[in-house]
């Protein structure tokens, strides 16, 4: 792999930047792999990267029906934070946060991780009690967090209306300074390039249409480009996971909903941080390009169409203008939807399945981008060891029968 550096930039300038190496190969599928990862989103690519890098397992394929990162990875609003309430979830997201902090160096790829901080606003007394509880829980888990007053919020984000005039006055917020945003495409590309360099085959335009089984164990996958053998299969397919589980003969407690986002025309820098509000139901940040990046809530109905209802977009913009009256005349440029796989407790499923050798990493719903490196890291460990990583273990499918749910609806909320 050609490494990127200031020096290589100068060197390639001499040949008009025409001789850069391709990011990854486009190999023909082999007959068999040690591990097949289904789904070339951020989580799948991170899994393949860590399998090769940390466990020396390089006979690996990532099978993607479209293009790399074209699912929710490239559709999200890129918010990264780790201020989750329960110990299990906090450990998972904080594991990811620590990896984010060194990711650009590790991948030799600028993922534009920017720790500009995340505000979660409180508008009612109950909001404030929940915020206090969550911040205290975070601090006990060694995660940075503060409860801040409206005056302090005004210093952090001057464009926000913290006055008592607001329809839902802001009473305070939780503030996680280490939170922020990252460039979502770059995350997929960085992991893909890193994995490819270590020998992983990235098979795009290849759709898994079924599983090959022998005596209750998975031995490969059927695809539109023929059968591919595998000793172990990990499915990391977000909104399509329920469909894949059905192909394998079992059910997952997932529901697939459209989730929308939109961006405005580019503006001069006006937002310093990421602001989210569960109560008025909106969240916003500004990309380095200058557009306001705005996230909506999910549509309540099931859908696989990668689009949602217009009314959701309308409500979202009402919420944004409620928080930032100054944006009332900003024009919106683009709007899109992704299909998110929600679970009953708003926590992911990282688990074995009734089929031996077949693992699922899904259920990240509306908020899995922030976990991308951590999720891939613990999933790779689990596939390599044939047993679940201690951080992943509480997220087994069994919890929906034993009742050991990890209820993160408060910390997940509208929040992403």
């Amino acid at each position, binding site marked *: 792999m050609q490494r990127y550096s200031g020096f290589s930039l100068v060197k390639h300038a001499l040949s008009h930047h025409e001789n850069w190496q391709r990011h990854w190969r486009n190999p023909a599928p082999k007959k068999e792999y040690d591990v097949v990862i289904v789904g070339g989103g951020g989580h799948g690519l991170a899994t393949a990267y860590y399998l090769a890098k940390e466990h020396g397992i390089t006979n690996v394929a990532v099978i993607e029906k479209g293009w790399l990162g074209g699912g929710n990875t490239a559709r999200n609003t890129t918010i990264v934070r780790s201020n989750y309430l329960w110990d299990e979830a906090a450990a998972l997201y904080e594991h990811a946060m620590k990896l984010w902090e060194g990711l650009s160096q590790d991948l030799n790829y600028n993922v534009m991780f920017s720790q500009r901080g995340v505000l979660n606003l409180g508008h009612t007394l109950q909001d404030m009690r929940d915020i206090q509880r969550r911040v205290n829980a975070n601090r006990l888990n060694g995660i940075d967090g503060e409860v801040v007053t409206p005056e302090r919020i005004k210093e952090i984000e001057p464009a926000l209306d913290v006055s008592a005039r607001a329809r839902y006055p802001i009473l305070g917020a939780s503030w996680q300074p280490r939170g922020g945003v990252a460039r979502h495409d770059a995350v997929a590309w960085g992991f893909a390039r890193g994995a490819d360099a270590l020998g992983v085959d990235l098979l795009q335009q290849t759709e898994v249409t079924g599983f090959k089984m022998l005596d209750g164990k998975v031995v490969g996958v059927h695809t539109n480009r023929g059968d591919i053998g595998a000793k172990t299969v990990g499915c990391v397919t977000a909104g*399509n996971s*329920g*469909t894949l589980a059905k192909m394998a003969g079992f*059910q*997952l*407690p*997932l*529901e*697939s909903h459209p989730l929308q986002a939109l961006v405005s025309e580019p503006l001069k820098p006006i937002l310093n941080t990421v602001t989210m509000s569960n109560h008025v139901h909106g969240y916003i940040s500004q990309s380095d390009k200058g557009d306001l990046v705005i996230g909506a809530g999910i*549509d*309540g*109905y*099931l*859908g*696989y*169409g990668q689009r949602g*209802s*217009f*009314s959701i977009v309308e409500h979202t913009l009402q919420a944004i203008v409620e928080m930032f009256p100054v944006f009332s005349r900003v024009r919106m440029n683009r709007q899109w939807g992704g299909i998110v796989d929600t679970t*009953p407790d708003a926590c992911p499923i990282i688990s074995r399945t009734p089929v031996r050798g077949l693992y699922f990493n899904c259920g990240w719903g509306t908020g899995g981008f922030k976990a991308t490196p951590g999720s891939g890291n613990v999933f790779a460990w689990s596939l390599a060891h044939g047993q679940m990583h201690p951080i992943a273990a509480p997220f087994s499918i069994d919890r*929906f*029968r*034993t*009742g050991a749910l990890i209820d993160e609806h408060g910390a997940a909320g509208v929040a992403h």
Partner: protein
Amino acid sequence: MFYIYCPYCAEYREEEEFHPKGQAHIARPLDPMATSDDAWGDYLFFRDNPRGVHHELWVHAVGCRKFFNVTRDTRTYAILETYRIGEQPSVTADSVSTGSAASTATLTGVQA
């Protein structure tokens, strides 16, 4: 944006008057104490989530406030029929895949 026929108001109304309430026709186990953990988990948490024909519960929240059922395709989002609580769907995944009288059933289902 959906335009939904409420089988109680007998009128088409805009989506915003309604709320989706999840999968339809889920019966609560009659004797919870005698229900196994597996069956109880299924009842609480496991839903069909099909890519295709889906029967779901909606409520006419700012209209008549009654619950009713909708058969909808989760890929195209097309509403195939709406019908009252206690009734069974006339359009199902099977009837659509075999094409058996689905289109006429849709019409009568919607108008009924």
